[in-house]
């Protein structure tokens, strides 16, 4: 076996197919993540508030500090790995213009801020939770875009 650098990615079909699988699974992860969050954590402000701080009227206990930190810790790890691989593919296949750079940076900054605002919202100021929801949706939408764009560039775009 000899490892070489691939200059023209589109002409290496096995490599393209492998990356296609990665991108399709990334898309599946993003969709599933929204469904799981809807069920377990809440993606509306009311549902999120109830999960984090409980609701005395409905006899719902607040989430404990340890459970919240477990959730956050897992989220950080998954997000960093998924976004790193997706961004690496995106950088490799996208045109080197300022638009792709903007999308890349916006996505990663949104993801970082979604984690930070969730932690701040839980520990200090619940008014940060709308910001968490906004950044949560923005990093998902931008990741969708990056995945579809990379799929298009790999399979359909003419160079």
């Amino acid at each position, binding site marked *: 076996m000899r490892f070489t650098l691939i200059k023209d990615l589109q002409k290496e079909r096995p490599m393209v197919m492998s990356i296609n699988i990665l991108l399709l699974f990334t898309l599946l992860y993003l969709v599933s993540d929204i469904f799981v969050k809807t069920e377990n954590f809440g993606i509306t402000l009311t549902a999120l508030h109830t999960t984090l701080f409980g609701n005395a009227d409905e006899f719902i206990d607040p989430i404990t500090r340890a459970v919240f*930190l*477990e959730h956050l810790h897992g989220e950080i790890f998954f997000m960093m790995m998924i976004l790193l691989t997706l961004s690496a593919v995106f950088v490799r296949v996208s045109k080197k213009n300022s638009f792709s750079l903007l999308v890349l940076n916006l996505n990663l900054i949104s993801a970082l801020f979604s984690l930070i605002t969730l932690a701040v919202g839980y520990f200090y100021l619940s008014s940060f939770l709308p910001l968490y929801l906004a950044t949560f949706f923005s990093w998902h939408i931008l990741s969708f875009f990056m995945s579809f764009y990379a799929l298009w560039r790999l399979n359909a775009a003419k160079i």
Partner: protein
Amino acid sequence: MQQRYNSLVLYFVLFSLLLLGSAYLLFDAKIGFSYNGILHYYQGDKTLFTSAKSFSGILKIILPHIFAFGLFLMVLLHFGVFTAFRKHPLFRYFIYTLGIAAFVELFSPFFIILGLGFFAYFKLLAFFVLEVGTLIFIWLLFRSVLTH
């Protein structure tokens, strides 16, 4: 492209900082940074009505971490190959130290539940070596990205 990859490393470094911070807070919330705290968490405590952890219970907790530690350390440390630090004589020892610390941090609880309480010190030491070592490495990567 080189600049874009550099910015990706920078974001990875920021995510790693969040990961380290959350790991520290989680350790503090669930176990606590004391010899007794670690013993009580794994061997149980009658006064707190907590039961001792079982072999399979610990295995269940560490199973995802075994893969996650390996992947995280590989991704983080392999970036070091692209910095000036790769030629440093201590780089190899640094990698070994982090690998061994991760191993001890994961597997020391098994010895604690077997009654070897002093392994709590190893667990604590390994956790801090891993945290501080990773922080040092993150700083080296950060500096390297900024200088290029």
